[in-house]
């Protein structure tokens, strides 16, 4: 029965063969034959191997596959005997811009702002949102690109226009050299996104957090359109997103933290993205696994740095050498974590590096099975195309490659790449590999010949026996098809060269060569050569080496001073210290503090603890609450400011916390335990803040403090009116302090109207709701309403008393209180008004003179505000100052005679109060978080150094351990450098020694 069915199928295929819509010039040439590939080792799919198998194809598709003896070949079959060769389903690349038009960057210098899109059509308001782009419509086959892919084993790619934040849909195409209509398999496969605005010249978004907000708002807009019977626009972009919502969504990211960021967006909108990673996923495996996202992984492993000059090597950061060492393990580690992934050739500078890098990954522990799975099965599955591609099964596309041996062997060659049943020869297997040893007989005289070099460029050495001596001579060898030519010097003297030149044919599958030779004197003679048997010792040895590779240790984060394992909370007793409680008890001498479960458990004298509890001697040391920086810009990825609009309440630093900032560790070394990471100050209403504990080594989410109250940055003065931005930035409203006031009134007026609209809508019954226009979710106005609802609190960058006064008036009339004025260098002029309003002041100890608006700044500012009853803190706004805020606090004693205890509170308890964290931080009190610092001296003295910084009961910085880490880092870097130099000596390409210096953000840093 089955057989009959098969027969019928075959028949049908014969009848439907080769009809198409194209006009043909000349006579039609339909071949109508079957092709069989016999006696090969066939990988039917990534895990099914058929030894001595046959693959039968017809009309672009697989007809049958199985053991050679079981597959019946129709009469009209062209048979290829592939004995000893391997057949694999060809690879699939899910990240590609194959056949897409070049993206033209509008490179003209951009003077002044561009607030609106240059795209005047009925599309999204933002130039970086272009979901309407359809790769299928843009696709034109490009043979040069296709050939590059075919050479490395790919038969199919998912291609899209890699430009913009929401990029449109991709098309699945095969990589043959036929017409686009034949190569295009599916024109709508997946939606694509990134955080990179690409060629968009529009200002917004100017930061990573802006891109995140833009995607979210766009999704809400789609939702609004979908749920709204009275949507007034005909917006082709939103429609396109809606139409393609059910397709897989593929998100291209720049690093492992971006994966977590994108996944958060996905969670909000019930979408699971597939991620195009960066090859550094191994650095955050646990968190990436938790996203449940699949990953498309590049294998563009970094080249070793050229570090033979030790001074040059100084420029290469520890993290860069460490990444070089670990990158080839990435795929193995992903597989070990059971994260589904595919491998892409995208990101390689040269596609030729693909197979060597793939083999390197296998050498570094990725199993061959997993590698094949990631190149065939997984990509097809990810995009729901396994019915067409990804394995060699009946009715699937005849997309396969023929390799000389196991593709993962270093010497394996891809001979042919068949795309939709059409042959593409890459390296003709009928060509002879002449490498080996031969006995050459020229007119009775014997020579020994050794042929080395590559298959393409064989290089010969001839051994001429002259009595007792053997002379080595170079022999030139040229092979063309079955013709061979040899020539070498047989002269006795150096002075007069005498060449013996041989030409002839390769016979009997490269066992015998023969032909005619011309002697140096011009006489013609006969010659022949017989191949000797090979010995294969070398190959085996190399295979053995592979298994012994252990994964080098991964640091959290992967940089200098990173942790081998994350610190854990311990029960600890700090004995006999001077304890600055910041509570009514004041400073307690010779006091013990017990820490348990991350909290302060007991404060007392001569505490006795059970055995095993770690006891830290605090004799002659001081214990204080950890420093909290109310105003910090460390640990932020790709932009601290979304400068592009006057109001950007929709963006949030919490979306872009960067756990890989060395300054986290450096600040721990200065006793800092927590910080408010603020948006910058270039617009009146900036973005939302992130509150973090400096839990070095943890992921961004784990660092964030879980708190019900949110915070947001506002700003006044020169930065928001762009006073110091040069002559081209005189367009964006506001340009004066007068305008700033109106921005606030306008924003909060709109926020209230927005809320009223929603409230009114909520009151309607379902029928009425149907008839009414549903309000739009506006992330910016949602945030402003959080302020009005006392769920989000303001930290306002401010300098001059007039503007400070103004904002308090705006607050009073609109119904909000300014939680904290930050910088507030003229706070001393209106401390009374601040107190009445209920605003705190978080200022600099002594900064001034850097802008005109700080001309009246005085170092006594903190003291006056404090004395007048304003809750006062000192902050850093600076990665350098952030690590010695205890010294800054001491300046309050010098300038204005604040008491020592109160001065310390300026950087501990008072910022905790401002951040609404004083119920759990800021003082040493039973039940509070054990976020404390042990100092070697009086904490306000310039001579104080940090002994230990403890967060939630775990030691994150230890002065002694720091020295050990430094030494280990030095040794590790040196060891890796040795490996790099060894690779360079082996002839590997290197890259010049360099590292990008990390950006240090301040309030007024514009751009990424």
């Amino acid at each position, binding site marked *: 029965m089955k057989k009959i069915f098969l027969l019928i199928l075959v028949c049908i295929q014969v009848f439907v063969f080769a009809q198409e819509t194209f006009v043909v010039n000349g006579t039609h040439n339909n071949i109508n034959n079957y092709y069989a590939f016999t006696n090969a080792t066939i990988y039917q799919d990534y895990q099914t191997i058929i030894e001595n198998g046959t693959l039968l194809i017809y009309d672009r598709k697989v007809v049958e596959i199985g053991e050679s003896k079981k597959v019946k070949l129709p009469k009209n079959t062209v048979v290829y005997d592939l004995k000893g060769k391997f057949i694999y389903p060809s690879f699939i690349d899910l990240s590609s811009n194959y056949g897409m038009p070049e993206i033209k960057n509008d490179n003209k210098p951009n003077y002044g702002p561009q607030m609106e899109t240059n795209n005047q059509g009925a599309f999204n308001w933002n130039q970086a949102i272009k979901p309407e782009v359809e790769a299928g419509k843009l696709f034109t086959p490009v043979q040069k690109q296709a050939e590059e892919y075919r050479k490395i084993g790919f038969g199919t790619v998912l291609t899209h226009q890699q430009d913009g934040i929401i990029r449109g849909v991709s098309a699945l195409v095969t990589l043959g050299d036929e017409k686009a209509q034949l190569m295009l398999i599916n024109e709508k496969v997946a939606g694509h996104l990134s955080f990179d605005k690409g060629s968009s010249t529009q200002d917004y978004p100017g930061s990573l957090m802006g891109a995140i907000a833009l995607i979210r708002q766009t999704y809400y807009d789609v939702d609004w359109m979908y749920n709204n019977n009275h949507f007034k626009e005909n917006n082709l972009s939103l429609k396109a997103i809606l139409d393609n919502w059910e397709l897989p969504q593929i998100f291209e990211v720049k690093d492992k933290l971006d994966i977590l960021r994108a996944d958060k967006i996905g969670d909000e909108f019930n979408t699971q993205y597939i991620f195009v990673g960066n090859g550094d996923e191994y650095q955050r495996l646990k968190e990436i696994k938790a996203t449940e996202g699949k990953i498309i992984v590049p294998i563009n492993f970094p080249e070793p740095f050229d570090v033979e000059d030790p001074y040059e090597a100084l420029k290469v950061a520890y993290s860069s050498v460490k990444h070089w060492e670990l990158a080839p393990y990435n795929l193995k580690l992903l597989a070990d974590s059971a994260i589904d992934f595919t491998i892409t050739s995208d990101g390689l500078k040269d596609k030729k590096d693909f197979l060597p890098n793939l083999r390197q990954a296998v050498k570094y522990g990725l199993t061959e099975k997993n590698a094949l799975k990631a190149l065939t099965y997984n990509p097809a599955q990810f995009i729901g195309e396994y019915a067409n591609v990804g394995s060699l099964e009946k009715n699937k596309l005849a997309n396969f490659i023929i390799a000389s041996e196991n593709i993962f062997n270093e010497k394996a060659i891809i001979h042919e790449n068949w795309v939709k049943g059409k042959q593409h020869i890459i390296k003709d297997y009928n060509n002879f590999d002449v490498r080996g040893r031969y006995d050459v007989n020229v007119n009775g005289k014997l020579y020994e010949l050794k042929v080395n070099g590559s298959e393409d460029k064989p290089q010969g050495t001839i051994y001429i026996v002259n009595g007792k001596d053997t002379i080595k001579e170079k022999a030139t060898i040229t092979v063309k098809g079955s013709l061979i030519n040899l020539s070498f010097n047989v002269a006795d003297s150096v002075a007069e060269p005498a060449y013996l030149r041989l030409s002839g044919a390769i016979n009997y599958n490269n066992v015998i060569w023969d032909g005619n030779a011309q002697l140096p004197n011009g006489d013609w003679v006969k010659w022949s050569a017989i191949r000797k048997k090979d010995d294969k010792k070398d190959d085996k040895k190399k295979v053995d080496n592979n298994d012994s590779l252990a994964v080098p240790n991964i640091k959290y984060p992967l940089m200098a001073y990173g942790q081998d394992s994350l610190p854990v909370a311990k029960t600890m007793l700090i004995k006999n210290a001077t304890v600055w409680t910041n509570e009514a008890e004041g400073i307690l001498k010779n006091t013990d503090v017990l820490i348990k479960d991350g909290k302060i458990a007991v404060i007392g004298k001569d505490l006795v603890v059970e055995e095993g509890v770690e006891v830290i001697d605090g004799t002659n040391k001081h214990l204080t609450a950890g420093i909290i920086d109310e105003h910090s810009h460390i640990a932020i990825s790709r932009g601290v400011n979304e400068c592009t609009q006057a109001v950007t309440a929709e963006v949030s630093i919490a979306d872009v916390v960067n756990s890989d900032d*060395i300054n986290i560790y450096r600040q721990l070394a200065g006793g800092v335990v927590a910080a408010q990471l603020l948006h910058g100050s270039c617009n009146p209403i900036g973005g939302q803040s992130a509150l973090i504990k400096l839990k070095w080594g943890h992921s961004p989410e784990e660092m964030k403090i879980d708190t019900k109250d949110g915070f947001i940055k506002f700003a006044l003065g020169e930065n928001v009116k762009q006073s110091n931005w040069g002559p081209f930035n005189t367009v964006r409203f506001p340009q004066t302090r007068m305008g700033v006031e109106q921005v606030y009134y306008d924003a909060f007026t709109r926020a209230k109207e927005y809320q009223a609209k929603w409230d009114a809508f909520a009151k309607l019954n379902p029928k009425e709701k149907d008839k009414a226009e549903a309000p739009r979710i506006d992330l910016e106005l949602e945030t402003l309403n959080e302020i009005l609802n006392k769920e989000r609190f303001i930290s306002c960058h401010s300098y001059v008393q007039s503007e400070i006064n103004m904002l308090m008036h705006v607050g009073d009339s609109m119904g909000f209180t300014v939680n904290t004025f930050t910088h507030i260098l003229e706070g001393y002029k209106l401390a009374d008004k601040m107190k009445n309003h209920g605003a705190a002041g978080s200022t600099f100890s002594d900064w001034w003179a850097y802008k005109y608006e700080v001309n009246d700044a005085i170092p006594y500012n903190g003291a006056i505000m404090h004395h007048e009853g304003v809750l006062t803190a000192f902050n850093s706004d600076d990665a350098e100052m952030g690590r010695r805020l205890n010294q800054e606090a001491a300046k309050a004693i010098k300038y204005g005679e604040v008491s020592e205890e109160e001065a310390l509170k300026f950087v501990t308890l008072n910022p905790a109060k401002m951040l609404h964290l004083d119920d759990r931080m800021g003082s040493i009190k039973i039940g509070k978080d054990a976020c404390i610092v042990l100092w070697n001296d009086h904490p*306000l003295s*310039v001579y104080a150094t940090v002994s230990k910084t403890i967060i939630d009961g775990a030691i994150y910085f230890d002065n002694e351990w720091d020295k050990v880490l430094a030494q280990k880092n030095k040794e590790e870097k040196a060891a890796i450098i040795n490996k790099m130099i060894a690779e360079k000596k082996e002839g590997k390409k290197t890259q010049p020694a360099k590292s990008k210096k990390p950006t240090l953000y301040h309030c007024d840093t514009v751009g990424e």
Partner: protein
Amino acid sequence: MKTKIIILLTIYFQLFAFNLLAQVPSPAPQQKGAVLLQNGIAHLGNGEVIENAVIGFENGKITLVADARVVKIDPSSYDTIINIEGKHVYPGIIAPNSTLGLTEIDAVRATQDNDETGILNPHVRSIIAYNTESNITTTVRFNGVLMGQITPRGGLISGSSSIVQFDAWNWEDAIYKEDDGIHINWPNMYQRWGGKENKEYDNTKKELHDFFENAKPYCKVNNHNEINIRFESVRGLFNGTKRIYIHTDYIKEITEAITFVKKYELKNVTLVGAYDAWMVTELLKENNISVILKRVHSLPERQEEDVYLPYKMPKILFDAGILFCLENAGDMEAMNTRNLPFYAGTAVAYGLTKEQALQTITLNTAKILSIDKTCGSLEIGKDATLFVSTGDALDMKTNNVELAFIQGRKIDLSSRQKNLYEKYSKKYKQQ
């Protein structure tokens, strides 16, 4: 008539304005009579401390520095005797490589006079732009910084610095040593620390070499018919009367700069910034090169460097026997000058003794600037440029300058900042 009123009004408003802004106090008159400071803890600046000291000065010069317990004082030979029991007395702190008086407000271009256009400006002289009316200088004095080397910025050769004292009517009065040296910004081999290679490096370096290649023979002739004012301005580098200050940080640039000064046989050489100097101390010593060390309150430049490396550098250079002093160039440098004593304090937390640290902001600075014969420490015969602090002046917690003398003149420590403090303290007292 009308014009008269306008003129009168203008004068009136100008006077009014003057009154409001006249917060830079008048310079003190010449010292009259002898002064004795009694019973203070004297930190001499040369590494020594006298726990109970007597310090006398007359006509602007120190006449007595002694342990109160071993000398007998004749009170009648002093016109003023000040008891500073329990208080600390220090030589005036000197700020090298400073832009004080050349800049007032960083963001306001009109107030910037420190960076001339062009790349070869050895003839540009900072001293004539030095503004004695700067409000910043007064805020530096009240922390004990009493002198400075006013230094131009920018270009390949920035120009000539001059050393001033901080209590003067005009730049002529302020001069302590005019045109003391020429400042060179060694070109960067890389975009700031480890970035891409600077492809112009070799060309820029050649421009510098070309300049010196020609300047040297030019300066061998004294009376040229055609004067080249650039070459004239560097004459002192070849005859040893001026110092060359090379601003550079990266180890390779430092090494190249040393080859450069050797080639042109420049004798008085100081590296400024010199972040990597701690790695090449032997080379510096062999070539007798001193260092004006980059701001101690800095972040490490490289990821894996000791987190406290900038704090520890003074100790490393000290142990290596390098003559060095501390500076504060960088962001907001003018206003930050007042934190110079605290940089020294931080160096104490990370290895130096207090007296060694003090030396790096007083006597060592004077030595490098070649003014140590007359200032930089509390020693008989030197200028009476000194200050009294209630407590340890290197610690912000206790630094409180009560008295300060520049060349024996008791200076007015008030400032616009203190005035504003008093003004607004009054506001709250009135309430």
